[in-house]
């Protein structure tokens, strides 16, 4: 009963031999799973490790937009690499390098950094513009910062220690400030979030770009609003 069967299979085999290597099932070179620590492809690395918070294409994410050309213009590669390797203290950005308890090798971090730079860094993004530097050592003046806030930010952002419902947009909410570092606040104020309509340093108040000092002062004022025990007590039943 098997003779006919084998004839059939031989026919099929002949068919395959004549079709050559066009078989859809034939494994392509490198089809086997690459060791996870040898993945160097930026898109794959980014979509596995970064897209969750920073958005699918470096924008529209919950955290800072990496595809923002202004952000890429003010941050340097060393800083990007350091943040990926060690995380950003004072924020929820975790360390991703194996040396700091994460899962990525140094090569993979480099692949991420160079991939971001080649995709999202445009040398002319802020050319000729007086953009405040990414980092500063200056001391801020909180009182002046509040004035800058009123003139540049208050049209959208409200203030208040503990926001009462989800819709209100208080920028000095204790819990919010507890989850973001001064450096991250500075980065957002300068670079904005073009993907969700948050202006950058020059367009918060049209015609009056914020100076380095303005930014530093606003950050200082916001930092002065931080609470000792944010988020507490939880609202409880009466």
């Amino acid at each position, binding site marked *: 009963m098997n003779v006919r069967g084998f004839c059939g299979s031989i026919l099929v085999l002949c068919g395959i031999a004549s079709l050559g290597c066009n078989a859809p099932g034939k494994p392509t070179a490198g089809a086997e799973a690459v060791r996870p620590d040898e993945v160097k492809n930026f898109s794959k690395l980014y979509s596995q490790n970064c897209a969750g918070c920073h958005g699918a294409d470096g924008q529209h994410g919950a955290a800072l937009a990496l595809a923002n050309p202004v952000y890429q213009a003010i941050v340097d590669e060393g800083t990007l690499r350091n943040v990926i390797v060690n995380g950003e203290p004072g924020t*929820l950005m*975790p*360390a991703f390098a*194996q040396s700091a*308890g994460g899962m990525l090798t140094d090569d993979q971090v480099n692949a991420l950094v160079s991939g971001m730079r080649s995709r999202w860094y445009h040398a002319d993004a802020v050319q000729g513009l007086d953009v405040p530097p990414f980092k500063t050592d200056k001391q801020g003046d909180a009182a002046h910062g509040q004035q800058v806030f009123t003139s540049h930010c208050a049209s959208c952002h409200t203030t208040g220690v503990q926001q009462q419902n989800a819709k209100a947009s208080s920028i000095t909410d204790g819990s919010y400030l507890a989850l973001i570092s001064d450096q991250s606040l500075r980065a957002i104020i300068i670079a904005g979030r073009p993907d969700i309509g948050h202006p950058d340093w020059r367009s918060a108040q049209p015609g009056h770009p914020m100076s380095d000092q303005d930014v530093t002062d606003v950050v200082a004022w916001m930092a002065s609003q931080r609470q000792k025990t944010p988020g507490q007590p939880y609202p409880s039943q009466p």
Partner: protein
Amino acid sequence: MSEEKPLTRRWLLLAVGAAFNGIVGVALAVPVVGYLLSPIRKKSAYSQWISLGSLSQFPEGQTRLADFVNPFKKPQDGETAKTPCWVRRLSADKFQVFAINCAHLGCPVRWFPQSELFMCPCHGGVYYANGDRASGPPERGLFTYDYKLVSGELHINAGQMPTLADQAKLVTIDGKGKSPCLG
């Protein structure tokens, strides 16, 4: 039928021949049973102190992945001789070394420092930072290895894949070295 047959000399010889075969067969087969059962050893025969390397790779307050080569490695083991484990350093000389294997069905658990949980990809077993069962199907916490500190290196007593059959051994700790924190 056989009752009708008289016990002739030839039938007797046949019976003796069969019995002779049986005796030789048993004499040969019994030692072979020993050969088949030879992988079964006492736990102590399958564990040995091995170094995980310098203490400096394990920052205090963190849990890090380490791996070691099985002390009973054979050439044909290849990559499978390597075994990973999670090392949690509580203080300068206080550690917890967790087996990679989930206590449910042995899948590799992964540590998430952000939420301070171990999660298992197979059936969703979750453990807290100290190895206690948090949720999911496991009956117990993660398996731990005994450890000791030898001249700036972390040594663990390992060599066998931990399974639920080791429970007895894990509960009775033989006072040697520092007692592991019970998971």
